[in-house]
């Protein structure tokens, strides 16, 4: 019998805010233990938490970036459990009325497209961080109360690769939208994986196994690569799986039981009495809509479609948004967007880095780059000279046409002049001429270079080749 995997992911992402979710402590990674704590995030009795408006805004924006919707009424609930890293003995989360519902993420997958539907994205708080020692554990509450977004996918993922690509696409969107820095090294993204297997064609899901607290996307992929065959192995031999939580061990490359259904937590959710519901009005939702940026994949596809760019160039402009914006300004003024992309990526970007210049400090307007390319395309200057003109433009901000005129850089396409240079080059290098006639093609390139040198880089390259060959073969 053939089996298939059914995978759903719960992805936790720390929001990019200055302060914590309910108090004015800094949301900051790497501070000395328990330096960013106060009575509220330490869970002292009698304190009053107040929701961080920026965290609510980022949550709503995430909903839209993931093609979902902002709900008209969201509230917070207490999820009750005892654990040393949760000082209040509950975690505040959104249980049945989250801030956002629905949506989907699209991504490239094995040369085609993949898509994962989103159930919801809700807002909650992070917990403290424990460090384990020989005979005891230590808890740092700096992380407690940091706004945490949980993005729940539908159980529609079918393979480890699909899970991996989905997570990368999700991360790209969140970084792009300014929702989170998603720094994996700093634990800003963590993932719970739900996985079951069933015979192909069967409707009911198999026993749900949860793998908790994965902190890398490659870890998720590896865990699934181990867990899917393990479950299929059990079921296909007539065994029975039961609902449990497992732990992934990066070192052994295996999962192991953490707790079974019998030991599962009973969280007794109830409405958080200290926090009021959130009811966004139309102007609020409109202001969030105004912050929706073009998603990375859509941008890549648009650059490939509208400017006929190869995927690698388009990807460069996805990762460097301002550079992409600059490219677009120049490309709109040009007939050769691909040439513009080459100049922007190969020349302009390099010059900016070398000279530590920002895009805003460039002395010439983007259209001047289009003009320069036009001079080359129309044969007015050679591509060799174009490099010099570009350097001059970069230094002075002068228009390319002005530089060409001032420095007399127009390409020489006058055959008489080029013939003269060719004669000189052949006369000065009889050995190379002899070599070429004897069949050494490389000798021609040397002679071409000599002619170009004599013309001070201004001779038309195609004409040099033609004339040289004609003369040498005569």
């Amino acid at each position: 019998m053939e089996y298939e995997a059914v995978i759903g992911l719960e992805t936790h992402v720390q929001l990019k805010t200055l302060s914590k979710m309910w108090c004015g402590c800094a949301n900051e990674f790497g501070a000395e233990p328990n330096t960013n704590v106060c009575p509220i995030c330490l869970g002292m009795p009698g304190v009053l938490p107040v929701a961080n408006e920026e965290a609510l805004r980022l949550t709503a924006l995430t909903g839209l970036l993931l093609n979902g919707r902002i709900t008209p009424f969201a509230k917070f609930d207490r999820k009750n459990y005892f654990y040393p890293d949760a000082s209040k003995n509950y975690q505040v989360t959104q249980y049945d009325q989250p801030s956002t519902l629905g949506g989907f993420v699209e991504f490239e997958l094995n040369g085609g497209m993949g898509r994962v539907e989103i159930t919801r994205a809700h807002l909650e708080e992070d917990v403290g961080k424990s460090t384990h020692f020989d005979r005891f554990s230590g808890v740092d509450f700096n992380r407690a109360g940091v706004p945490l977004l949980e993005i729940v996918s539908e159980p529609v993922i079918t393979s480890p690769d699909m899970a991996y690509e989905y997570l990368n696409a999700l991360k790209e969107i969140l970084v792009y939208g300014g929702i989170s820095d998603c720094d994996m090294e700093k634990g800003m993204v963590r993932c719970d994986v739900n996985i079951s297997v069933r015979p192909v064609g069967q409707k009911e899901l198999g026993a749900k196994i949860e793998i908790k607290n994965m902190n890398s996307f490659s870890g998720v992929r590896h865990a699934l690569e181990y867990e899917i065959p393990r479950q299929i192995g059990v079921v296909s031999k007539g065994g029975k799986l039961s609902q449990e939580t497992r732990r992934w061990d990066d070192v052994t490359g295996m999962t192991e039981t953490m707790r079974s259904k019998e030991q599962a937590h009973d969280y007794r959710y109830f409405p958080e009495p200290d926090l009021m519901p959130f009811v966004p009005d139309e102007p609020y939702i409109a202001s969030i809509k105004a912050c929706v940026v073009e998603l990375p994949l859509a941008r890549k596809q648009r650059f490939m479609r509208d400017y006929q760019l190869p995927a690698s160039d388009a990807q460069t402009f996805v990762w460097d948004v301002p550079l992409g914006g600059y490219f677009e300004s120049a490309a709109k003024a040009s007939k050769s967007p691909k040439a513009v992309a080459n100049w922007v990526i190969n020349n302009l970007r390099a010059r900016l880095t070398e000279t530590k210049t920002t895009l805003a400090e460039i002395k010439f307007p983007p259209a001047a780059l289009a003009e320069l390319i036009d001079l080359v395309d129309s044969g007015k200057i050679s591509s060799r000279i174009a490099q010099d003109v570009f350097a001059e433009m970069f230094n002075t901000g002068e228009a390319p046409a002005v530089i060409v005129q001032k420095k007399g850089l127009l390409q020489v396409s006058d055959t008489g002049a080029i013939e003269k240079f060719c004669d000189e080059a052949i006369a000065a290098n009889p050995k190379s001429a002899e070599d070429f006639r004897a069949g050494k093609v490389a000798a021609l390139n040397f002679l071409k270079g000599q002619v170009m040198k004599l013309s001070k880089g201004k001779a038309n390259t195609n004409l040099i080749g033609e004339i040289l060959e004609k003369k040498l073969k005569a």
Partner: protein
Amino acid sequence: MAAVEIDVNYVAHLARLSLTPEETQRVSTQLGNILAFIDKLSEVDVSKVEPTAHAVPLVNVTRPDVVTGSLPTAEALRNAPTKANGLFVVPKIVE
């Protein structure tokens, strides 16, 4: 009104309380009475009343995203039974 059955031992475990048999008995009766009292609500027709999480008609209570400072670490750790290197020391967590 039928008293509502409640598994006191289970609830006590969730709350990490250890009760003597006498306490279990007493709490059981008390909790039953409370639930019976609350059950009176089922006599009222609430079909036209929206469920609510809060009695106060207040929404959108938020604060600006501003760092306003924290406690000195020594102060934060003052009530901790055991502390070391700025950490709250707890029994070893194994799960």
